């Protein structure tokens, strides 16, 4: 119990005094996860809409695979990305390993199935309502997809927030491909793992509380901007 209070106090002090190292790794955490989220959403949203609107042979299989990949262990993703980006691997010439870019790539792979699955669920429900109307209006498939995505934008934001939650708290993959290098690839979660390893539980917990506060803040700001809880259904 003592460690918990010490952790809370330490976390509070680091935020209150704007500890430069804390600011640095927090900004890096945000940069990596938000970049990954942006790229992953750009892939996952149209994919989810396509799966809701279009009927093709491998559709069910694709959905099943996406759902299964939600549970992808980050460590495995990290290891695969490491092998691909390693100097001895196929993309070694790019020199990306142990850079924030490698961390973004790993997180995109982790986030796409999650965001696509959650988004597909709500888009499918909406599609069953819109189906007859849109067919009757004889719109193109592209118009169907954009209409669905626009009208379900709040649900898509929820899907993105779920992705943000998974990305900002993820440690297994970015530890392997980022390497937790001080001033280069150290982020909140890898710093927490490091301090736990050193037995400095108070500092690790302090960083943990900062991480929780950060996730909370991002969610609140998103809801406030989207005014999710004000209007009627959408």
């Amino acid at each position: 119990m003592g460690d918990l209070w010490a952790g809370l106090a330490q976390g509070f002090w680091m935020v209150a005094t704007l500890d430069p190292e804390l600011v640095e790794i927090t900004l890096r955490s945000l940069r990596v996860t938000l970049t990954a989220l942006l790229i992953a959403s750009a892939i996952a949203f149209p994919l989810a809409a396509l799966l809701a609107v279009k009927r093709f042979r491998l559709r069910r299989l694709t959905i099943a695979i996406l759902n299964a990949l939600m549970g992808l262990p980050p460590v495995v993703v990290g290891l695969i990305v490491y092998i691909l980006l390693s100097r001895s691997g196929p993309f070694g010439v790019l020199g990306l390993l142990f850079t924030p870019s490698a961390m973004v790539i790993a997180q995109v792979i982790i986030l796409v199935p999650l965001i696509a699955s959650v988004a597909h669920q709500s888009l499918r429900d909406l599609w069953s309502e819109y189906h007859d109307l849109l067919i009757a209006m004889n719109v193109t498939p592209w118009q169907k997809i954009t209409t669905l995505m626009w009208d379900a934008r709040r649900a898509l934001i929820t899907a993105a927030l779920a992705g943000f939650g998974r990305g900002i708290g993820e440690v297994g993959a970015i530890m392997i491909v980022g390497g937790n290098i001080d001033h280069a690839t150290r982020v909140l979660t890898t710093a927490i793992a490091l301090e736990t390893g050193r037995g400095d539980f108070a500092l690790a917990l302090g960083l943990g509380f900062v991480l929780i506060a950060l996730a909370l803040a991002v969610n609140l700001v998103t809801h406030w901007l989207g005014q999710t809880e004000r209007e009627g259904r959408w």
Partner: protein
Amino acid sequence: MMTRLILSLGLLLSALAAQADTVRMAVTTSFHNSGLADVLLPEIARDTGIEVQLLVVGTGQALRLGAAGDVDAVLVHSRSAEEAFVAAGHGTRRVPLMYNDFILVGPAADPAGIADTGTAAEALTRIATAGAAFVSRGDDSGTHKAELALWSAAGIAPEGAWYKPVGAGMGAALNTASGLDAYVLSDRASWLNFGNRGGLALLFAGDPALFNQYAFLPVNAERHPHVQAGAVARLESWLLSDRAREVIDGYTLGGEALFVYNAGE
């Protein structure tokens, strides 16, 4: 359009990655936990202008990173693995740099009675005979290899419910030992820097069999042309200088000197 997008994305990513005069060095957790890096790296940066980026992993993974060419140099502590690394052509040479020592840590009450033994082998024999809980790193790290060598020197094959390989770094193994009130082999630096000791205490140290030699291994630039060979050579000559001896010998933690510089001896 898609290929162009991917291409430009790749270019953007690699542009972000490019940096000047940076050396990536894989080091062991025990070296990093000692805190020496916090003193050493700023000195290196000031004297040579080289920014050393540390990847903190176990010796096994450090050597793998070196073999794949993902780091420019390796600083580890497992002689036989290092010699195999150089023999396989992954590294150009092995430069012994400094040593510290391993210690046996355990519950302060010392149920196996290892505190008054004369050698590390005898201490381990008593732990095994008493069946007292012993936490092993179990991660193919330098410390793990040293521990296995000590067991085999004692003529014991450690197995049974009392022997608990955790497959984790030094800090995590110490955390586990602290939780289980178990014995554990640690390097002195990690122990002195460790914050969560609980009921553990330093029980045995000083046997020459427990000396822990660190060596610096530059990665073979002929095999991996992208390796920063020039910067690594400058780093190596700094490490072999009197300046490095001063910094390493002068590093203390809690009033104790941790490392003994012995390059070129």
